């Protein structure tokens, strides 16, 4: 083997090993994050975290019950806005439209998907907070819902399109109208995919903080109804992490563990649902 060839082989092995290292580093980051959160969060989490209100500033103890409920309310509102628009919009794109209108809708959805979350916050502020004159759960849910729309829409459309044409034609040949075909054949055939799309969109907005800063704002107490500012887990993590109190730092870790745990579990469930489904061939 000539020296040159040996050198080339060495370079090849060396560079390919380096790429392997890159992959290793990238994946290791995930386990570092998980490890730190489980370690710091696990030692500071307690029953009080889930059941108590935040303690007054300067006192230790207390929990984030109001933030957990607040996050749940915000996400409920987000789903109420994001899922119908995403789902029915996707049906329009996949089943009814072709050409220009579909292009415009897709373009708008992709544009909306790329908008930085803080800008979504500004939009929700000027659209909901300003007219009502104060921060509210409603405004926060609106902002999160906006972010759910493009994710739900685009992936639901993909899954609807993956349903074989033959199924649609079979239903129509039996005399079903188009919407009956969609409702009783196409959507059931794609339901795993659609569920995955919705779950992933939900998980994505569950951790969003920036759009809530000046829409849902924050609250150290319970937030009755929908028109009051409310605490939420992500915003609590932010305020507690940058505050100068050790006890707050501990609670921020606990909240981080709860939030990340929730998001990763939803992600894993979504992927399991999808992988268990019958693979639908593309036509």
């Amino acid at each position, binding site marked *: 083997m000539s020296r040159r060839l040996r050198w080339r082989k060495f370079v090849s092995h060396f560079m390919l090993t380096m*790429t392997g290292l890159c*992959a290793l580093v990238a994946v290791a980051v995930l386990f570092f994050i998980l490890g*730190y959160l489980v370690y710091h969060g696990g030692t500071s989490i307690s029953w009080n975290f889930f059941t108590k209100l935040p303690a007054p500033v300067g006192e230790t103890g207390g929990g984030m019950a109001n933030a957990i409920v607040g996050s749940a309310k915000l996400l409920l509102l987000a789903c109420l806005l994001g899922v119908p628009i995403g*789902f029915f919009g996707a049906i329009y794109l996949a089943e009814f439209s072709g050409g220009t209108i579909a292009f415009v809708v897709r373009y*708008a959805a992709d544009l909306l998907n790329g*908008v*930085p979350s803080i800008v979504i916050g500004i939009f929700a502020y000027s659209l909901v907070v300003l007219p009502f004159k104060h921060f509210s759960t409603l405004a926060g849910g609106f902002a999160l819902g906006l972010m759910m729309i493009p994710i739900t*829409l685009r992936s639901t459309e993909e899954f609807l399109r993956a349903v074989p044409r033959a199924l649609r034609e079979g239903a129509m040949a039996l005399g079903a109208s188009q919407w*009956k075909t969609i409702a009783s054949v196409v959507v059931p055939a794609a339901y795993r995919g659609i569920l995955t799309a919705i779950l992933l969109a939900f998980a994505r907005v569950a951790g969003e903080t920036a759009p809530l800063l000046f829409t849902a704002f924050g609250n150290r107490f319970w937030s009755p109804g929908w028109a009051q500012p409310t605490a939420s887990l992500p915003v609590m993590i932010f305020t507690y992490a940058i505050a100068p109190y050790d006890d707050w730092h501990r609670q921020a870790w606990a909240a981080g563990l709860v939030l990340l745990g929730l998001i990763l579990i939803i992600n894993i469930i979504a992927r399991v649902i999808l992988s268990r489904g019958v693979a639908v061939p593309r036509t």
Partner: protein
Amino acid sequence: MGSRSFLSKLRDGDEIARLVTFIFAGSVVLITLLLVFELWRESYLPRHKFGFGFFVTSVWDPIFDKFGALPFIYGTVVTAAVALLIAVPLGIGAAIFLAELAPARVSDTLQFFIDLLAAVPSVIYGLLGVFIVIPMMRQYIQPALKNSLGFLPFFQGPAYGVGFLTAGMVLAIMVIPYIISVSREVLISVPRDQREAALALGSTRWESTWKVVLPFARTGIMGSIFLALARALGETMAVTMVIGNTPTISASLFSPGYSIAAVIANEFTEATGDLYLQSLIELGLVLFLLTFLLNGMARLLIVVTSQRGSGMGQA
């Protein structure tokens, strides 16, 4: 289907279903237009008062109603640049491993972890940034850089821990999953014959990757980088928590700084006076336009490459 009259479609509910779903789909377009319109309308005051000067002056003084965005633009650009310098080689390297070397099972498993990493919310990165990365930077990395590369203007000044470099590093970690996922897809779409031809000509595995596969996938990989850049520019929470939140323009990466998204996050609720608030909204508009352009270009590049790949595959 074509033979059915409009009336029978109406009776079957088809036209109603079409109309209802159309309203939902149309509302997406409406919302997007409204977003652009609101940003434009709500930034009227600073646009008219400062004009282009808004982008090139660096005084940000709410008390005297003077607003210049240069330090924030500088901070956004510098942190994104640092992030890409770290994330691009790492991300593309990992993508090469996943697409070219790893067996399908390993590749899919690793991709699953990468997807989970992409799902970690930015406030969690911020949390780790505050308690893990900042102390580490202050105690080990910044002193080490100062000792070895301190003659460069980038690595001078006191090591606070917070600053451009820290924000850039946290951003890098956040955008790596996007670069890996998209680049991997693009690399996989490169036709097999390209690799086989290079190997048949006697090239080593790395040479076929470096000289044949990567050039083929170049535009798509550029797309993934633009996508990552758009994410990095618009990223708010993690940056806000580690950049130091001081409007500075300094060549040193150790210096605390500020970014567009961070200043909006910190000052929006405290902004008193219309000009102040609208200046922040104009910053939002700038951020929107930047990410809009980058995302558009990214999509174009990715589509171009994957089409070229499939076209060649069939030929």
